[in-house]
């Protein structure tokens, strides 16, 4: 029997695995997607090859790309954009690591307390949670982002709006700042020459390929690559725990395996998780038992696995309460160079506590074209679409096609693109459930993802419109000669809260320690455990801090360990001991 089985090796699972492997527990990590052991050879960084959401190497599907992507029922025009494989969606994330807004935590008494989703707060205070943020920020590590041309433009525009610079890690008022990113700052020749090589160059090389997966600087050991996606940070640590922690034990990783059932034993109040069944790529079925099971398969697959396993759902909230930051895109067209296709994915942001945020993003041309033509407002100049959203002050809204698209995208490096990230409300009707329509796959009924975006709460819609208008204003202050608003349908890049924790047992699945309320020894450590949409900040850091807290709970409650966060000094993922082990073991 294993000590712990972790289902999923994305943004959260490796955090639990690393923390518990450090203490010598026997940890097995199961991942449905592939392991990218040599991405420097296997990843082209070409947009269709990488980011085609159905055929690219960063997709939700098996490693064998001759096979179809995983089936998901997606009624409506929402689109889920996740990544399977070791690293999960962090493989294409931008590494942005803002902390959640203070107002989404219990006990918040700020003057703007009523501006948040007050019925779905964290079940503990920010003060209690802050040490876990610090632990993860030191482990990844998180650092203040440098600027490229596009960030200079963006932040100059913000300053021209009259916004102040945020002086700490936690904005308390509308303000701008360089991002706090899980990306190593550039050193040596990085950011200064076109083809830098490790070790002359360290950290971010400004290549412009965060969304295609980070393999740079060329020649760097895996754990020293710039972006701290978990394949570059927590996974190397969990696989080398014996090398950097006294008494540590390397976790075991199995990829291309599908967990098809979570097993339990006992009943009533003594019901507890006992193990999992999984199917390997050859179709063989295996069973592993464990003292604790941690689900970290993601916002879609975790509730699906819960439901196909027939686990209890007494209050009906399993899969419910999906939030996605209701993103939108605003783009400015400039007369001179902006460097929009170069540099990190996003190094600058605006924060509007109680409303959400706006961040600049880096888009190569195909993704920029995708962004220009994804809209719920019809086609610009042709028909209005279904949304009813206004332009928010932009010169145009809707899909850009034909001559308008060709003209607007005639120079990708004269654009400046802003992503609107809305503080959206938890609504029970937005959910993940099981499809009754589409054929089952090898694991059972496939998931159905429902986001009724035209039935969003008034607060969510008002927040989004406000933020879009701020983004338009920023573009004009930054010097844009033309501004376009896309008005995206739900493009679910950030997904959260489908297995939410909460203070109210009638509206939450997890207790305040990320453990199931009805199945003991069953924890959740992905974005689905989040109680809300964090007020708009990007979710990965908070999920990783929550996963760290869950790991601490597992060790203290079920394995007789002692708490360590706030008392020990974390080992960073770029520690020499990790590097030496990574190189020696060919990781």
């Amino acid at each position, binding site marked *: 029997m294993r000590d712990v089985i972790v289902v999923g090796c994305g943004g959260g699972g490796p955090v639990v695995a690393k923390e518990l492997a450090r203490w010598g527990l026997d940890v097995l990590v199961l991942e449905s997607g592939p392991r990218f052991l040599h991405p420097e050879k296997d990843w082209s960084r070409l947009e269709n090859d990488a980011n085609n959401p159905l055929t690219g190497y960063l997709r939700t599907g098996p490693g064998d790309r001759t096979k179809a992507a995983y089936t998901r029922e997606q009624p409506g025009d929402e689109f889920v954009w996740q990544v399977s494989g070791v690293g999960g969606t962090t493989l294409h994330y931008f590494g942005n690591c803002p902390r959640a807004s203070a107002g989404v935590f219990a006990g918040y008494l700020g003057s703007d307390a009523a501006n948040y989703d007050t019925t779905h707060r964290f079940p503990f*205070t920010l003060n209690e949670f802050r040490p876990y943020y610090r632990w993860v920020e030191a482990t990844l590590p998180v650092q203040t982002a440098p600027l490229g041309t596009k960030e200079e433009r963006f932040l100059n525009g913000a300053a021209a709006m009259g916004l102040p610079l945020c002086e700490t890690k936690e904005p308390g008022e509308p303000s701008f700042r360089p991002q706090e990113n899980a990306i190593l700052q550039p050193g040596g020749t990085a950011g200064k020459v076109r083809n830098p090589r490790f070790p002359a160059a360290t950290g971010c090389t400004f290549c412009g390929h965060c969304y295609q997966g980070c393999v740079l600087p060329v020649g760097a050991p895996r754990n020293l690559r710039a972006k701290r996606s978990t394949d570059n940070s927590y996974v190397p640590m969990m696989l080398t725990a014996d090398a950097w922690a006294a008494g540590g034990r390397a976790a075991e990783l199995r990829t291309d395996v599908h967990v098809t059932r979570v097993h339990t034993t006992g009943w009533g109040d003594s019901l507890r998780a006992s193990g999992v069944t999984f199917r390997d790529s050859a179709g063989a079925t295996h069973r592993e038992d464990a003292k604790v099971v941690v689900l970290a398969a993601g916002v879609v697959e975790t509730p699906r696995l819960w439901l196909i396993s027939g686990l209890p759902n007494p209050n009906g909230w399993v899969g419910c309460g999906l939030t996605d930051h209701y993103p939108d895109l605003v783009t400015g067209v400039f007369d001179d160079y902006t460097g929009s296709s170069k540099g990190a994915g996003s190094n600058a942001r605006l924060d509007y506590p109680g409303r959400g945020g706006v961040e600049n993003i880096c888009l190569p041309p195909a993704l920029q074209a995708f962004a220009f033509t994804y809209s719920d407002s019809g086609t610009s100049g042709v028909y209005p679409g279904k949304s009813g959203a206004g332009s928010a002050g932009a010169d145009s809204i809707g899909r850009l096609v034909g001559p308008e698209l060709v003209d607007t995208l005639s120079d990708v490096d004269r654009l400046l693109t802003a992503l609107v990230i809305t503080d959206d409300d938890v609504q029970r009707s937005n959910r993940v459930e099981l499809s009754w329509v589409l054929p089952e796959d090898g694991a059972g009924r496939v998931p159905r993802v429902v986001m009724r975006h035209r039935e969003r709460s008034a607060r969510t819609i008002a927040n989004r419109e406000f933020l879009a208008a701020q983004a338009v204003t920023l573009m004009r202050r930054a010097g844009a000669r033309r501004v376009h608003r896309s008005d995206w349908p739900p493009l679910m890049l950030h997904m959260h809260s489908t297995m939410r924790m909460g203070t109210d047992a009638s509206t939450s699945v997890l207790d305040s320690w990320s453990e199931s309320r009805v199945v003991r020894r069953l924890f959740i450590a992905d974005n689905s455990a989040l109680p809300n949409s964090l007020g708009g900040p990007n979710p990965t850091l908070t999920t990783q801090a929550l996963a760290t807290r869950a790991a601490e709970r597992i060790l203290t409650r079920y394995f007789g360990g002692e708490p360590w966060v706030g008392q020990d000094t974390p080992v960073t993922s770029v520690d020499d001991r990790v590097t030496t082990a990574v190189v020696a073991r060919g990781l």
Partner: protein
Amino acid sequence: MSLERIYLNARGAVGAPEVWRCGATMTFPSPDPAGVRRRTVLLGAPAAAALIAWSTPTAAGAADDDYLAQAFKALAAYVVPGSDEYSKQQRLTTQRPGGVAAGTDVMLEETYDKAIAVGIAPLFEVNLPGAAGVALLLDVFTRVRYPEQPSGPFQHPFANLGHSQKALVLADLDTEQLLEDSPIGYAFGTIITLTAFGCYGERGVYNPQTRVLRGRPVGWDLAQYDGVSDGWPELRGYWGGRTSVPDVPVLLDRAATDGQGQHA
């Protein structure tokens, strides 16, 4: 007739079809496109299969492209016009290669064949999976919008439309509530989006077996993109020279977040 047979017929891979059946119980209306009303299609009349048959009298078309390639090249020309014959047919061209030359049709066919494993829109009697289903759905919506059958050199009726006519067909697709409620509603909402992604992507000159570009992608020229690189000399420094920020002051933190006796 099997789905495979219909698929092959739709692609023009087998001989000229007669009237095809999508199922054993299916019957067919009189092949009078002008008599097909949109709601009739919506309510499940088996129009789609018949519509394929109606599309066959025309010759192979000005190009040698098959039915699917015509559909997707016509979409590519709509999103990014160029100097190709599809753009000429829509009467909106440019002086340079556009979405057709970018090889967008290859990317769309691959993508939809991987994405859609079930009949794409049963309510419209479009029970073909994959790229064939998308092409046929586009066919159906074209004929419902333009029952007089726009003339032209192409087998796929959408490819014979003018640019503004195409816009109206795509508007119908974009706003049809029944499609939005289908199990794969996203597939319809992203037709234009995926086409644009293909127009500016590399697929047309990329060999996935060797993972080598045969040339510079058309979209890179259109967007003046500098291409894939291991890095750029883009570092401009740090805002105000700030390379780190302090954590929250403890006093401010406690005053704002702990309250009095309100811990969970």
